[in-house]
């Protein structure tokens, strides 16, 4: 099993979700994060005081998939999340040793 963690632009979530579903992947967990990278932040001005805000709102989509589905998942995410503009985000893949479904205590690929 692999854990795929994708940092994406928030307004692409619906598309990413649909793409993953279409690829047969139904489980995922999403969290709100702030990203800092090459994409330039913006300035906010409060009564003349200027602040450069480097941290931009992003969403982190995590999903654990069987090894075999990693390419499908990556492809689906890339296709759905890409706008071609800087800041589209990253995908990181890590190895997962075990998975347990709490409800049934199933383990491994069954569990996801």
């Amino acid at each position, binding site marked *: 099993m692999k854990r795929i963690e994708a940092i994406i*632009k928030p*307004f692409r979530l*619906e598309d990413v979700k649909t793409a993953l579903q279409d690829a047969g992947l139904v489980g995922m967990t999403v969290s709100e994060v702030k990203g800092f990278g090459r994409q330039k932040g*913006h*300035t*906010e*001005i*409060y009564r003349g005081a200027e602040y450069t805000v480097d941290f931009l709102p992003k969403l982190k989509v995590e999903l654990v998939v069987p090894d075999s589905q990693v390419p499908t998942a990556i492809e689906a995410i890339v296709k759905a999340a890409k706008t071609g*503009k800087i800041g589209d985000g990253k995908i990181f893949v890590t190895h997962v040793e075990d998975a347990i479904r709490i409800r049934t205590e199933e383990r491994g690929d069954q569990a996801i």
Partner: protein
Amino acid sequence: MTPLCRALVLAVVGLFAATAAEPGLEQRVSDLEAYIRNTAPAGPIQGNPGPGHNGWMMVSAGLVLFMTLPGLALFYGGLVRRKNVLSVLAQCLGLAGIVTILWWVCGYSLSFGKGSPFLGGFQWSFLRGVTADPNPDYGAWVSHNVYAMYQLMFAIITPGLIIGAVAERMRYQALMIFCAAWMVLVYFPVAHMLWGADGWMNGLWNSKAAIKSIDFAGGIVVHMTSGWSALILCLLLGPRKGFGREPIVPHSMVLCMVGTGMLWFGWYGFNAGSAVAADRIAANAFTATTLSAAVGLCVWAVLEWTLRRRPSVLGMCSGAVAGLATITPASGFVTPTGAVLIGLAAGLATFLACGKLKSFFRYDDSLDTFGVHAVGGTLGTLLAGVLATTEINANLSADWIRPLVGTSLWWEQVKAGGLVLLLSVVVTVILYAVIDRVVGCRVAEEIENQGLDLAEHGEEGYTH
């Protein structure tokens, strides 16, 4: 003449002098009674505002401002997505600023000054001559400048209502220009025609009105103008990105409900204040307003309960606002039972408009300005024609309008409403075309994605 007789003569002469003063006293007492009765004084007290009426109208003016800042701002601001909340607030604030300046320059004069039946003159520009003395054309006991400020608050909230239809996608600059021009081309003429002392459709006060329509607190002037313009504007602007495809849900129903409470509270200034006195008519309007709001609220709740098993906060808020908007033109004319009927009709019609009409025609009236305000205002205008009664508003006994009451008044309402609807639509189409060409009406797609707050105002609604 005996001395006694002489004395008597002198005494009587003296008494005559006293009685000569008498009519003065009688007049002065009558004038004080006129204060209680809210009729015009004729003696030396003339030119003074009456404290009870004047105080009430200052409160009412404050309440109507409170409806926009922060009432409407929250009602609408809660319904947009978090990334656009400040854009709504900025629009409400900006309108408060711009409309006030316009009002000072010429707006009040064009709306309420004497001129043609269609538009006032410039005699009161820069509020010259609009002093603290009452102007009996508009309120026998209310300072003329308080009346001007009271009416200003209406002029601020009216374009504010349009925000609801174009939220989350219209450029700030374009909206401000649109509204400024719209005030001059739609609001000032319509306010003059309906409410100006010599207005063309002012059936209540102008015996020479061509169309003898009535509009107590702004069914036509406020809700129809803004509501129908809003529909056209949102059609021209096109739907928000993702409309109908992605969930676009309120970011804070709590703010929306707070705004609703403030609107309801402020609406007493709006409706009962439209009596321009703390008199019987104000009392009647207060009562009608309360009943219609509550009934509208219940209708939505019951319909949602029946159809979806879950009465929602947004439903109840919408119903209350619908009841308030619909009773507006009728509030000073109808009995409590009339108000309950209007609340019922309001709830039903707006429920259908927001639920069915919009999904059928698939226009994106973001926050239902059309579904609530245009539908409610139009319906209320018509029903005011049907349900108005001289028992509630003695001013309807004026000989030029009495024959219409209970008979064909509704037809005057249709005529007035129809013409104003037409004017609103036509002006909106033209203004949109021009402004879209010159400055562009819609924000770039990138900005719509990111949210208007950052791009257009350089701020975020909330940080952690």
